[in-house]
């Protein structure tokens, strides 16, 4: 029973890893996932987040087994 977390780009480099795993708790939001994985890190400006590869907001609820991703503003094309 857990949430898989992925970090990309500058976040991945800053944290020194591409992801984490935290235990699922009923009622958990994306922000709760962040705080559980990174208790010492405030939410960066311009942070983007996705649940199961769909953009979402920090107050969105997560389900057990979800993949939650955190990354900076995109710079593609």
């Amino acid at each position, binding site marked *: 029973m857990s949430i898989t977390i*992925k970090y990309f780009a500058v976040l991945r480099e800053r944290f020194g890893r591409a992801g984490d795993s935290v235990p699922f708790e009923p009622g958990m939001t994306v922000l709760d996932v962040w705080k559980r994985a990174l208790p010492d890190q405030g939410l960066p400006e311009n*942070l*983007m987040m*996705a649940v199961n590869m769909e*953009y979402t907001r*920090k107050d969105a609820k997560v389900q057990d087994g979800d993949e939650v991703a955190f*990354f900076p503003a*995109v710079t*593609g*094309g």
Partner: protein
Amino acid sequence: MKIEIREQPFDPYREIARYQHETLPAGQYGATASFVGTMRDYNDGQPVHGMTLEYYPGMTEKNIDQICVQASTRWSLIDYLVIHRAGQISINDAIVVIAVWAAHRGDALDACKFILEDLKSKAPFWKKEIRDEGEAWVEGNTSGYAKSEE
């Protein structure tokens, strides 16, 4: 419809021609609009010597697919092709090619522009440029899209 992330260099015009030859029915399309983004050796007036383009395997393709499907509902399209580079990119390499086939020019042009703009603001890619002083992530902004409110 083809959407692909490519780790190796590609010739964008050969890709368009090949896809068209293999996939498009002759006589149906009257208009093909395409855009190719290419790696420059400068940005904001500063020299750039190359870059690394990171993406989110799975989500990036899914996001581009959603953008193209949305374009298909807004305009009358026959087919489209999007190839985006990732990994180590050298000066003058193609970064992205978007091609849109339609019966009429307005649909092809407008859909191509829409896909490009949406792709640039939404598709999960992150550029790390090699500059004179070393490597640095290009800073973007979320333009209000899916932005954190904290």
